[in-house]
Structures are given as structure tokens and as C-alpha cells.
């Protein structure tokens, strides 16, 4: 009998070949296909982008290819990794010999994948010694060399650091070095830059590209950011509900998508030139609730009778173009320009008399074990009625601290924070209760900011109850109104947070924040934990609310493209200082501060050429 992970005489130029892969999750009682009939091929030196919303099966596909799925999973179809065929029956030792040597994987959270209590150099040395079978001394040399190759600053010194002493980007570099230790022919990268700052992200992307050029390894790059895809990938496979719906070269896909879902994803991306993202209605069906026929049909505006009953022929990613759709789109992508939101022309820092919320020379200290830490200082900015102010910057630059000062969560250590001429009261004082009616927060993670054991409806009503507004009936009526204006159906009122999707949770949080009819909404990375298609719909909602309710918005984000599509003014933060402040379009076209230019340059963007944005959709 042939071994299940038998060595094949193979074609070195195609390190990964998957055909007809179906992966199912199996228990005693039921079996459910997570990934269905996926075929793809990666050549040496090729970077294949695997894109799709979360839950579409990207990670499961990668894990299946590496034979990393647990015993509850069943795979059918063929997977060939370099010279090895991966099957369910492959023994652990056979798989171990594959992993690291023939293929390696890096993950989103690098620091969680490294051993926290061992120096990174030692971890790297061990891996090298194990994978290359060399002596420890030699392995050390190779490890150090690997650290140099991943462009780690001060590699000799970092060699003796623990993971927690390194930044996120440096940990990701270590992870990449570990992945390279066995000279793999194929690298799986599952959202490797999602958790990183834009400037660091662009460095890591460059690194992956240059390592690819150098070693000619194939790369499967999983991401949900089409800007990143455009930056690094050669070809793309779009995954939806466990199937590949479209594949082709990156230029073709980005310029002339043929599957409505791909178009939807591209349209969901905000761009630096101010495209207003559109989003895709609805959500990815759970694996056990996938519709018959085309899985995208419930969300597709081109869907016809046939789509609901028949399954379009599967697309395969094998170099050529293919699309799984009965009515593929034709022609090039153009962009519909949407009305710009009104923006008052005024310098955002100017001495404005009618400022709603303003910070003047504000500084904020946090108490730490090593004494006071000044998070921001000398911040002067103001928000007028109807403004949409973006606060952008990298993590740790003090963006959220500005939000906290505006909300009265932290007191100013120097300078002042004022709301309509009065100082912002501090949370916990009696003045703050009245202030809370005017300024509200939409935090980053909607799941975390809703009480898991209270229904959505009762939580939306709660602010009214707290402030004793209206009778029971009136509150009920207002709750329906709020649900509707946040784009939620009324029956969600009786559900619990874990019973609804992330996008719906964020809408519920927004509805709750709007219950008191605030004047200012402070959104702190409010869409960072959402899929791009969902993020686009939340942005649309915020634009709508701004128009209808005359809401002023402070939008804290690390994504410059979002700032561009939503905000009238931008404040750029860098290590606690405000480096540039002004209106959005002039600043994006001609940034004054070099740091702003650097941020703009590192932001991956889906736009190809300026001229294309001018074309309109047929």
C-alpha cells in the first residue's frame, strides 16, 4: 500500500495544487461542508491572494492544505503540497515532515504564535536545527542570518529578546524568519498584516515580496483588504460561502471584476481618492444554512430564478480566468461618484466662536507603575456643528486618548476640554449625566460593549430609562424608530447580542448611542473589527445619520481611506502630538507634514489610476 502522504515525483514549479477539495466538519449526528469543491494552484514565485468575507472558508482551506485540521474534520479531494500528497489518513509524522520544510504558515497574531517565555533567537535556532538537521552552533548562525534577511533592526541584539519586548511588526518578522527556517517552497500567510499599523504593514508586505523574489517560493496570501491584494498579489481567488466564485490575475480582477460578489467587495473599499464605499447587503450564510443554487443569490441584485435553483459551474484558480456566475458582469469597473457631504470651509483649529467641542492645549497623563505617562500634549482642535473630524494615526499615537478627553473619561492634565463653552465634566460626577445626553461613544468592538445577557431592544431603550425620558409606551415607540434608523429589523429587538452578526451589533450600539439624540458621536475605530463589506454599510449609515440628524462626528481610525470617505476634517496624530490638521481633500492632495505623506504612501489602495475614478458605471 502506498503511504497516504507518499512522495510524488513532481513538478517543482507548482508547489501547491488542490483539486476538488471539500472540507467538512463532522460530529456523530451531522456533517456540514465548510469548504466545497475548491481547486487552486500556486506556482513557484507566485503570490495568490485568497479573499472573501470572514466565514467564507479562507483559513479552513489553508489549514486543510497543511493537514492541520483536527480529527473532527474530513477532507475529500486532492491536495498536493510540493512533493507530498496530503490526505486525512496521513500520519502525524508524515505531516510533521511536510510542515516547515515544504510549507509553512504565518498568522495574524504573531506574538500569540511565539513562545512567550523563550527568547526569540532560541526559538528560531531550535526550529532551524530541527528542520535542517544541523548542529546547534550552525543553527545559531543560520538563525541570525534569517533575522538579517527579514530585515530585523539590530538582529544581534533582538536575538536575545523575548517576544513581549518586540513590537507587533518585529514579532511578525520573527514569525516569518521561523517560517523560512525550513526553506519552504510554499508560504501560507493568514492575514499577516491585519493587526499592524499601516507603515509597518507596508514594510512587511515589501519584505514578503522581496523574499518571494529571492527564494521563488509560492505564497498563499489570505486577506480581506483588497488594497493589500493589489499591492502584493499576482493572482486572486475570491472565496464566498466555501466556494471559489472568481479567479484571475490581479489586474483583471481589480479592473474588470466579473462576479457580482467581487464587484461588491471592490465597491466596499474606501479609497484615498474619496470613493464612498457601498457595501454588500446581508451577510455570509452560515455553513449549514447555505442556500441551494448560487450561495450569493440572496445578496445579489442580478439574481434571477435560475440562480436560486442551479449551482453555477465552479470557478477554479489555475492560472486562467474563471467565474462562477450565470450572468457575469462585462466591461471595466468605473466608479459612481456620490454627492460629497456638505463641508463648511474653515480651518479646524481656528478660533471659532460656535465650536461645539474643543480642546485647547490639552494634555493627558496616565498613571503607570513608573509614574506619569503623558499620552498626548498640546492638542488644540475644535469640532463645529455638522463637522466630521477624523483623528488618524498609528496605534499608540494617542487617538483614543483624544476621544477620552472629549467624553470626559479622562480629565485633562493641562489645558482645557470644553463643550459648548463649558468644561467637559468628568465621568462619575453628577454633571456628566446631563453631558452624556449630548456626547456619545461608539466603541471599537460592538460585542464587548453590549451586555451579553440583555436583549438588543432593552439595551437600546436603556438610555431613555436612565434619563427618565418618556413613558413605557413612548420608549417602546422610540425603540422601533431607533432600530429602523440604524437599519435593523424590528424582530432583532428580542434577540441577544450573540444571536446577531457583528455588523448588526454595531448598528445596535449606534442605535443605543442615538437614543438620547446626542449632538456629537465619537466613533473609536468603530468599524475596525468588521468585514469591509459590513464596514462600508456602517459608513453609509453614519453618513446618513449625519445628513438626517445633523450629527457631528469624531471618527477615530487608522484607515486613511475611511477618513477620506467620511470626514470633512482630519487631525493627524503622531506619538501624542498633533502634526497636521485641516480639511480632508486639500490635505490628502497635498499633505504638508512629511509624516502625513508617509502615511498616505503606505496605505494600500485599490484605485489604479486617477483617470479611472472619473469614468462612470454604465
Amino acid at each position: 500500500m502506498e503511504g497516504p502522504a507518499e512522495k510524488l515525483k513532481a513538478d517543482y514549479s507548482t508547489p501547491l495544487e488542490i483539486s476538488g477539495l471539500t472540507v467538512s466538519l463532522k460530529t456523530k449526528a451531522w456533517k456540514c461542508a465548510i469548504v466545497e469543491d475548491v481547486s487552486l494552484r500556486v506556482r513557484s514565485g507566485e503570490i495568490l491572494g485568497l479573499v472573501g468575507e470572514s466565514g467564507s472558508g479562507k483559513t479552513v482551506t489553508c489549514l486543510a492544505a497543511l493537514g492541520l485540521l483536527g480529527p473532527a474534520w474530513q477532507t475529500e479531494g486532492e491536495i498536493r503540497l510540493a512533493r507530498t500528497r496530503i490526505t486525512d489518513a496521513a500520519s502525524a509524522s508524515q505531516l510533521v515532515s511536510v510542515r516547515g520544510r515544504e510549507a509553512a504558515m504565518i498568522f495574524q497574531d504573531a506574538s500569540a504564535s511565539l513562545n512567550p517565555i523563550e527568547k526569540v533567537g532560541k526559538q528560531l535556532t531550535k526550529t532551524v536545527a530541527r528542520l535542517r538537521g544541523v548542529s546547534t552552533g550552525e543553527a545559531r548562525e543560520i538563525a541570525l542570518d534569517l533575522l538579517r534577511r527579514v530585515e530585523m533592526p539590530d538582529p544581534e541584539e533582538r536575538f536575545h529578546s523575548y517576544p513581549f519586548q518586540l513590537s507587533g511588526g518585529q514579532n511578525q518578522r520573527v514569525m516569518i524568519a521561523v517560517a523560512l527556517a525550513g526553506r519552504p517552497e510554499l508560504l501560507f500567510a493568514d492575514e499577516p498584516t491585519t493587526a499592524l499599523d499601516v507603515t509597518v504593514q507596508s514594510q512587511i508586505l515589501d519584505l514578503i515580496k522581496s523574499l518571494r523574489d529571492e527564494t521563488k517560493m509560492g505564497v498563499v496570501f489570505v486577506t480581506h483588504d483588497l488594497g493589500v491584494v493589489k499591492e502584493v498579489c499576482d493572482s486572486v481567488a475570491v472565496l464566498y460561502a466555501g466556494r471559489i466564485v472568481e479567479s484571475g490575475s490581479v489586474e483583471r480582477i481589480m479592473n474588470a471584476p466579473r462576479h457580482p460578489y467581487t464587484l461588491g467587495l471592490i465597491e466596499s473599499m474606501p479609497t484615498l481618492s474619496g470613493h464612498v464605499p457601498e457595501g454588500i447587503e446581508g451577510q455570509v450564510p452560515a455553513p449549514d444554512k447555505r442556500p441551494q443554487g448560487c450561495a450569493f443569490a440572496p445578496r445579489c441584485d442580478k439574481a434571477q430564478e435560475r440562480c436560486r435553483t442551479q449551482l453555477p459551474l465552479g470557478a477554479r484558480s489555475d492560472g486562467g480566468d474563471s467565474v462562477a456566475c450565470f450572468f457575469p458582469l462585462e466591461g471595466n469597473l468605473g466608479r459612481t461618484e456620490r454627492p460629497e457631504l456638505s463641508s463648511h470651509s474653515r480651518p479646524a483649529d481656528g478660533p471659532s466662536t460656535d465650536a461645539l467641542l474643543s480642546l485647547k492645549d490639552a494634555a493627558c497623563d496616565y498613571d503607570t507603575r513608573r509614574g506619569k505617562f503623558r499620552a498626548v500634549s498640546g492638542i488644540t482642535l475644535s469640532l463645529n456643528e455638522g463637522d466630521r473630524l477624523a483623528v488618524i494615526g498609528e496605534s499608540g499615537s494617542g487617538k483614543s486618548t483624544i476621544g477620552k478627553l472629549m467624553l470626559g473619561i479622562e480629565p485633562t492634565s493641562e489645558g482645557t476640554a470644553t463643550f459648548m463653552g463649558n468644561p467637559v465634566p468628568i465621568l462619575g460626577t453628577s454633571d456628566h449625566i446631563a453631558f452624556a445626553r449630548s456626547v456619545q461613544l461608539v466603541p471599537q468592538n460592538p460585542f464587548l460593549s453590549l451586555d451579553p445577557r440583555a436583549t438588543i431592544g432593552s439595551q437600546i431603550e436603556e438610555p431613555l430609562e436612565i434619563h427618565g425620558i418618556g413613558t413605557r409606551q413612548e420608549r417602546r415607540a422610540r425603540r422601533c424608530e431607533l432600530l429602523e434608523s440604524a437599519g435593523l429589523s424590528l424582530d432583532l429587538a428580542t434577540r441577544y447580542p450573540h444571536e446577531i452578526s457583528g455588523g448588526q451589533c454595531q448598528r445596535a450600539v449606534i442605535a443605543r448611542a442615538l437614543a438620547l439624540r446626542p449632538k456629537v458621536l465619537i466613533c473609536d475605530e468603530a468599524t475596525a473589527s468588521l468585514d469591509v463589506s459590513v464596514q462600508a454599510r456602517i459608513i453609509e449609515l453614519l453618513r446618513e445619520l449625519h445628513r438626517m440628524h445633523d450629527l457631528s462626528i469624531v471618527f477615530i481610525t487608522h484607515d486613511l481611506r475611511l477618513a477620506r470617505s467620511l470626514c470633512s476634517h482630519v487631525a493627524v496624530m503622531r506619538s501624542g502630538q498633533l502634526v497636521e490638521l485641516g480639511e480632508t481633500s486639500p490635505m490628502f492632495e497635498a499633505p504638508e507634514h512629511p509624516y502625513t505623506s508617509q502615511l498616505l504612501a503606505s496605505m494600500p489602495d485599490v484605485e489604479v489610476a486617477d483617470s479611472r475614478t472619473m469614468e462612470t458605471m454604465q
Partner: protein
Amino acid sequence: MAYSDASSAFERRTSTQVAIAHFAESPVIVKLAVLWLVMILFIAVTARWIMPYDYQETALLSRLLPPGATGTSGDFHLLGTDHLGRDLLSRLFSSIQLTMLVAVFGTLFGAVVGSCIGFVAARFRGWVDDVIMVLVDFQASMPFVIIALSVIAVMGTGNMLLFILLVGFQGWERYARISRGMTLSAVNHGYAAAIRLLGAGTMRVYLRHILPNILAALVVQVSINFPETVILETSMSFLGVGIQPPNTSLGNLLSYGRDYLLNAWWIAGVPGCTIFFTTLSMSIVGDWLRDVLDPTTNSGT
């Protein structure tokens, strides 16, 4: 109204339905344990009416009758009689009643006080937290019986209310630890902060939001503490510093039986088995509850 119509169309199970479904799927041993506890509770509530004889009535002619014997006056004793000829079944019922009374009220008292102490520590942090945590550590490193005995030594025996409070107090430090820890993590979880930002006061945040979220953990702790309270009560009564005659608890029964272990084993055996099976059942149900209420194994409410 529109939304209630819409919601009824959407099928969802109430928490009672979920609980029943869980119970139906539980292993046989859990069902037996629940059955035993239900029986004990039934006896505790109805002891007064279902006991065949007065539990204090002595009959010197019917002393030390074995289970199932009939006395000289033709009275039947299912579990036999003790050294004073009192009907053991009646005494058992009465003891179960008293033991349960002490355990239920004591445990609830300890749970409420302990949890509140934990809340206070989490709410105020700083030196309040430090002081409370030192007390908690102190308590955790000291057998509670010693404390209980010294309090009784000072206050004297025979005060039933004091005894209940004292017995219930054991384990307060565990509730305090749990409620403090979980409150801190609830605050960090974000929903508490979000609700405070809406203008809510401390009471609303703690009672309406945090308490329901940590209740499951506290309930599990109650189920662990309850048998310990029963044992503490019986051992104190056994030592003669707990429930005083003419009242009787399982501990008292046990201690009378000690002198007759060889010639009348049932006097100690019957209450002994009752204590054993009751605490065992509670532990089994407690373990099961912990699994059911654990949010990581159960996505239901």
C-alpha cells in the same frame, strides 16, 4: 405591536425550556441526585405533618428497637428507635428540617454578604480593595471551624440565629473572590463602561448588568458551598456546640448514635447515610450545573 408579532414568528426557546432540555439530556446519576434532593427538600418542608410520631416522645419500654420493629404498645417503627425509645424516622425528619433550614439560610446569607464584599472591593479598588483582599487571604488560610468554635465560646450556645449566620458565613471569601474578579473583568469587558457612559449610576450598572452576568458563577459556588455548610453544621452539632436539645439536627442524631454503634447501628447509620447521600447529591448536581452554566460550553442564555 409590530415587533412582538415579528418576534413570535422567529422561533426561540425561553430559558426554562433550555433548562428542561438540559436536564433531559443529563446523565442518570444527575437525575438520581436531583431526585434525592427533591425528596430531602420535600421532607424538610413537610416534616411536621408527615412524621408518624412526636419526635420528642420517649417510650422506655421500646428502647433500641431495630428498623421495622413493632413496639410493646403495637406502634410500628420503620427505622427503629433510639436509646430513649423515640421513633427514629420522626427524629430523622425533624433533623432534616433543621439541618436544611440552617444550610439554606446560612448559604444564602453567606452568598449575599460575600458577593457584596466582592462588589465593594471591585467598585472602590485602592485601599478598600487591599484591605478586603487581605481579609480574604487570611480567611482562606484559616480553618473556619476554629473561628466558629471561638465565636461560640464567647457568645455561648443556644442562639439559633447566630448559629445560622455563623455557619453560613463560611465560604464568604470565595464569593468575594469570584464576584470581585468577575466584576473587574466585566468592567474591562466594556459593556459596563459603555453603560456608564450613557449616564447610568453605579447601582444600575452593578445590579442590572454585572450581577446577571456573574450569577451563573455564583450559583455554581453556592452548589459547592451548600454541602460544606451541611457538614459544618453537622460537625458543630456533633461536637455539641451547634443545635441544642430539644431541637435536633442530623449532627445531634449522629452523636447520640456514637455510643451505640455496636448494638444499635441504625441510630448513627441512618443520619450518617442521609448526610452522605445529601452532600454527594449536591456535589453531583453542582458539577453538572457548572458544565451547563459555563458559557463556553453553552451558547444558550
